[in-house]
């Protein structure tokens, strides 16, 4: 039900319906709850609805932090 991994919007109609690529497969989704979403944006999808838009800058920073944590744990 809850896809914890983000998906990338691959089709977005005016009605709010569309598709997203979730780990390599296309899933149908409703984007009405994230009106600011645009084609190519990353979203969190839950029960067929996109509920949240990913912030690319924050995502990059978190990824960097994870990398540092990984490096620290190997020291």
């Amino acid at each position: 039900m809850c896809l914890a991994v983000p998906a990338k919007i691959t089709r977005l109609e005016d009605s709010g319906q569309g598709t997203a690529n979730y780990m390599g497969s296309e899933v149908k989704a409703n984007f009405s709850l994230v009106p600011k979403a645009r084609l190519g944006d990353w979203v969190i999808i839950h029960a067929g609805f996109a509920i949240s838009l990913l912030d690319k800058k924050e995502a990059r920073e978190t990824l960097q932090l994870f990398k540092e944590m990984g490096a620290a744990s190997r020291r």
Partner: protein
Amino acid sequence: MEVCGTHTVSIFRHGLRSLLPGNVRLISGPGCPVCITPAATHEAAITLVSEKEGLTLATFGDMTRVPTLKGSLQTAVPAPGSRIKIVYSPEEALEEARREPSRQVVFFGAGFETTIPAIAFTAKRAAAEGLGNFSVLPALWLVPPALRAILEAGEIAVSGFIYPGHVSAIIGAEPYEFVARDHGLPGAIAGFEPGDILLAVHSVLEQAVAGTPRVALEYSRAMRAGGNPVARALMEEVFEPFDAAWRGLGIIPASGLRFRERFAGFDATPKFGLARPGAAGRDLPGCRCGDVLRGVIRPEGCRLFGKKCLPDSPLGPCMVSYEGACLIHFKYGRTRRPSP
């Protein structure tokens, strides 16, 4: 306490408990909507599909396997012309109602704030299209009142919370602030990667040591502090809070949602003369899922765990749902070995 079942999955899958020092313990909380939906509501769904003819009961896959004293949806014999359809979105149920106007379609979906906006959207759309053959059997739960109930009951000594990332993506950080303010406990909203959870644990410990409890936002890549206002407005338009009965937690003030007057026609409960939710109903004898949901015992503390109660023959929802603590402990807990 990690509130969310998806966090529990991540913690176990990545063996995070074994990485933490002995004085830091993670306890699984009530964050499994399938589990906290009381027996009476699951039984109402079974009654509905076995007694009403020509009806489709659309529900999430996990819901069909929840055992009750009346069996499960999976073992139920549908009335003539009735069927159970597994969906992954409430919109699929709406689609079925459009396709077959002569058939009653009931969506039975358990969910927290993450799922509720989707259901609100679907009901509102059905209203706009005048689809009189669509309704919802509601099992809609709010997380913050449950945390309040756990803290007020004082049964377990919680020293901080890892708040659910996707519930928070909808409601934001504010609804948890009473935990820091009234109970002086730290907390952090977390994502679902192992790194996210460790960051949240770190933040909770840091707040505890410094004596500055707050609601830390450790998932800012996927949520805003204010949540999702579009989704929240929709929820508020369609539903209103009421004092709902949770499995194991009893009746919690303003912890469940029901349809507002304007949308009352979409509530399957009065429409089909089902018992009013509010009653918790009875669990299968010996099942301690309710105690597991309150964090009072670990799944291993249930006598039936891994013996009579197994994933193939579950005796409670906590062994059914992929977010259920018993299933997660069974799947990952026993294979975990301390590193050499």
